[in-house]
């Protein structure tokens, strides 16, 4: 699912956090419980959210992905170490901290094969969302999408199939657009 929100001020990271929070509330029905929990030395969570089935620790990457990944993992460790404290602070009607925990990372870029790498090494579910800024610095738009949902349809929606044929060197196979789309759908199923 994708969403374009506007306008976004690039002046402050906090404001971008709020915009992303708005995305999760509007698109996924999350409840945002807290902003900026913890600290950068022991573990920090940019957004603490829940959807009544899971607790989400959301990390917004504004720099490099490895740093954000580490920050997300540190945030999880901080969350677990301070769970008793958090249970005293947040009443169950606000957030049920006994629910399974998932990590969410928003980033502009992700390394290739990141889904399979995370599936291999992580004991918690990690959801990845790509965000992009469009427009100008004065009047930017932010575009967010769940790359798990869109991973297989990404080519179809974002990339011209002619370019795709050229990139993969498969023009000689003379595959029609319809055949390629059918292939993509079959692989996604």
């Amino acid at each position, binding site marked *: 699912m994708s969403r374009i929100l506007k306008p976004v001020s690039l002046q402050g990271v906090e404001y971008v956090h709020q915009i992303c929070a708005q995305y999760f509330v509007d698109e996924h029905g999350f409840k945002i419980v807290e902003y900026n929990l913890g600290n950068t030395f022991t573990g920090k969570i940019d957004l603490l959210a829940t959807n009544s089935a899971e607790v989400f620790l959301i990390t917004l990457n504004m720099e490099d992905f490895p740093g954000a990944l580490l920050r997300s993992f540190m945030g999880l460790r901080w969350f677990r170490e301070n769970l008793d404290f958090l249970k005293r602070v947040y009443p169950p009607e606000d957030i049920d901290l006994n629910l399974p925990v998932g990590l969410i990372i928003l980033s502009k870029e992700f390394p290739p094969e990141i889904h399979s790498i995370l599936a291999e090494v992580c004991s918690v579910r990690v959801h990845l969302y790509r965000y992009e800024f469009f427009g100008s610095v004065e009047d930017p738009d932010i575009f967010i999408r769940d790359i798990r949902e869109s991973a297989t349809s990404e080519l179809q929606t974002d990339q011209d199939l002619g370019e795709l044929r050229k990139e*993969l060197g498969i023009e000689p196979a003379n595959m029609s657009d319809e055949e390629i789309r059918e292939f993509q759908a079959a692989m996604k199923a």
Partner: protein
Amino acid sequence: MEERFRLGRGLKEISQVYLSDTARNEIKRHGKLKTVSGPRTVIRVCHPGSCLVQSFFLANLALELAKNRFSVYVWDGLDSSPVGMEAVMKSIVLDRKEDEAATVRLYGLPDILIYGPQRHDTDKLADLVRIVHASDNDRYLLVSADGSLASAMNDDIHAEHILLSGTDEKSLLQCYAHIRVILDKGSASGIFIVFDGVGHEKAAQETFERFAAFIDKKLNYTIDYLGNLSHDESLERSVEETKPLMLSQDRSETKDDMVSISRKFIHSRKTHDNS
């Protein structure tokens, strides 16, 4: 501290690699793995996404075939590349003259002879095909393709095909395009898929089932799955040392996968023969 070898083990390279300067052309296979005749002993291997993994795979497959007492010829379409077969097996290739085949000679096993378009003309390739077809199915010709679809279209050799591919959508689409061209040309007597570097075997198996079902539906053809070749540091070490992984004494996930894939491939012709 410098590593000291125990007395009685002999030279490290000899004990581990079984190099020999004596030809063993007279060695015949035992006949346990009798192959079917004709094109099933000409194997075209292609990895559209990675020449290095293709050469690595071929080198190890050639060794496994030799281990099963098959003489192996290789036509290396990547011989001008720094990651051609000869390059990835450099530590065990014997010195040779310019126009001769590169030879891998391991003690007690038939030679592996590597030819390529850079040093040999295409008549040589036709000769090799003839030799293999005329043999008593105890010789294999492994053709290392250059990975492009144009090459697949121009290749007139009737062969079995092993395609290596990642499981991401682009790699699979590339693989599908290759299969389409191969089938359009009518040059396949079998197509096998090997997935490259997938984390979970179960996920790889599921992807293969979807991929195979689509090919069956669209192209009315049944492909076979040989397995998933995982990547671990032993692969990197093997490439760095230019010594095929099959010769390593250490166990590793990649080596286990390579052994399993090779055996499944060799076993597939045994099964075919029995049926």
